[in-house]
């Protein structure tokens, strides 16, 4: 479909019509993606939720009504809607609202950081494998295949278990889980892009491979990989929570949603609503990331 008319807009009786396109501001690819994303109400709602959670986590010390570590044995397991504990209190009498706000810091950190690291490492490996082809590809992709032989939950638990509990080790093990997945996506996208005419045209221009990859390949590969990576954030958060729940991630009394879910499970019959709250937060955050990533993908797919 062509994009033009020669009529000077606003002046239908313009003299000799020049058979050209009227000057129009070019918006650029990412500009148009952003424009489409903004018009997607679901993605925008998800982005708003994520923004609120992130801001709440960052400014937790300012907005949290109480101290996250200070409990009270007499005020344990208050119900939601309590006059002092708006969202109730946990099994040690700590304010749930405060702890939920603070927990967002670690949970988001452990959800996002492994994906960010894996995004860079996996994209690099995948692009290398896809563009170089041949034995380089075989080497990288066969190693990746080995990781795919294990379910990601099992792999994360096994790695964390081997490395020992702790935040750093959890992040390392989660990163190792995600690198192969991102590598595989990056490789398959790169292989597609590499055979496009414009990449071949760039190759036959005599440019060296690094220049070709940097200018012609990178922008086209990172977009789809980025979308995939955002969808992994929710997985990462759930896995991180799972590790904490099993005692392999964050250690008490540090607030973290997965860990809170773990420690509150004893109270599930006494005060099920409060016990479920960390789970609600995990659910809310991960589904928001998923919806945002869906919106991003459809915004990036449209060509014109």
């Amino acid at each position, binding site marked *: 479909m062509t994009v033009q008319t020669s009529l000077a807009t606003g002046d239908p009786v313009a003299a000799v019509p020049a058979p*050209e*396109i009227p000057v129009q501001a070019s918006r650029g690819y990412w500009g148009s993606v952003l424009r489409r994303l903004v018009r997607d109400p679901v993605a925008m709602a998800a982005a708003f939720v994520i923004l609120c959670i992130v801001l709440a986590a960052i400014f937790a010390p300012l907005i949290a009504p109480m101290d996250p570590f200070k409990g009270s044995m007499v005020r344990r397991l208050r119900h939601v809607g309590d006059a002092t504990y708006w969202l109730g209190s946990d099994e040690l009498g700590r304010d749930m609202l405060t702890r939920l706000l603070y927990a967002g810091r670690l949970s988001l950190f452990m959800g996002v950081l492994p994906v960010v690291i894996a995004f860079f490492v996996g994209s690099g490996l995948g692009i290398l494998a896809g563009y170089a082809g041949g034995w380089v590809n075989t080497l990288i992709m066969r190693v990746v295949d080995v990781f795919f032989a294990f379910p990601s939950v099992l792999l994360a638990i096994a790695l964390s278990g081997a490395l020992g509990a702790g935040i750093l080790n959890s992040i390392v093990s989660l990163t190792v889980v995600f690198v192969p997945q991102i590598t595989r996506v990056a490789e398959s996208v790169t292989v597609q892009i590499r055979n*496009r005419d414009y990449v071949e045209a760039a190759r036959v*221009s*005599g440019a060296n491979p690094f220049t070709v990859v940097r200018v012609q390949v990178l922008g086209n590969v990172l977009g789809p990989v980025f979308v995939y990576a955002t969808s992994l954030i929710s997985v990462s958060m759930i896995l991180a929570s799972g590790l904490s729940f099993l005692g392999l991630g964050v250690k008490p009394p540090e607030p973290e949603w997965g860990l809170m879910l773990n420690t509150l499970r004893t109270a599930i019959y006494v005060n099920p609503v409060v016990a479920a709250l960390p789970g609600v937060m995990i659910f809310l955050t991960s589904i928001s990331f998923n919806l945002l990533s869906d919106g991003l993908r459809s915004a990036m797919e449209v060509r014109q």
Partner: protein
Amino acid sequence: MTDLDPRDRGGPAQPLLTVDGLVKHFAGKGGLFGKGPAVRAVDGVDFSVMKGETLGVVGESGCGKSTTARLLMQINRQDRGDIVFDGELLGSRALDLKAYRRQVQMVFQDSYASLNPRLTVEESVAFGPKAHGLSSAAALARAHDLLRRVGLEPRRFGGRYPHEVSGGQRQRVNIARALALEPRLLILDEAVSALDKSVEAQVLNLLTDLKNEFGLTYIFISHDLNVVRFMSDRVMVMYLGRVAEIGPADAILSTPRHPYTAALLASQPSTDPDARLEEAPLTGDPPNPINPPPGCRFHTRCQFAAEVCRTREPGLDPVAPAHAAACHMAVAGSGHPKAPAVPMAA
């Protein structure tokens, strides 16, 4: 008209490009294990292109014309055969790949697929010069100059993305991009085939102008015989990976010596309602290049096929001045087992 080029080595009498015994077989897709039979995409092709001329290449799908273009661009490497550019063998010390590619460029058929959707028009054109060491500013200046020469006002079009310009304009950008390295030989692989007819004529006119302005040599690949005749000095007809006929454009298209050329000509739909065809010149589809027929490759569809055609493959033999055909009918006492090593020269 081209002998002012300072890069010229052998003078106007030396062909700009000579291709000798070019062979490319692609490994076929087999069953679960191993590889199937090879696709004999290009199976022994010789020709040469004189300085400043346009060599038209025609043929149907599977004839090897696009593979030939890709071999000439070295997107794929040939299995056998030599490419000699202005007297220097490609791959020799005097002509390495980078130096060769600077002098030979290509315009692809799909104007959209051959432009990076993430780069603006001017960035795409400036990419080559920049990669060859020009500063960003100088490369951009050259891009603007070339865009102007292909009829696109750089201030208006330079900052646009490929989807923001029409098909004809995109192909102009591709032409500018190919010219950005100042090549001497331009390969046009179905470069106008995807364009609307009313736009095709504009681009053909542009190609003619650019050829005169820059002293270019063209290899013009198309399935449209009329367009090839209009653009070319000489025409090469390919069939199943081999040259069926090569010679001056007018001679080939007025008095074709190969029955396949004649059939191709007769298959062009005429715009005269009273000259509608009542019978197809050829039956069946072009055979699969995986398993080309023995003897003359065309004999399975040729109405003149005789015993000798089924057993012996005809060589590409001269039938008139500068005109050669690979047909037993065209050569008296046809007994040439192989194509002549020295290609036809005008």
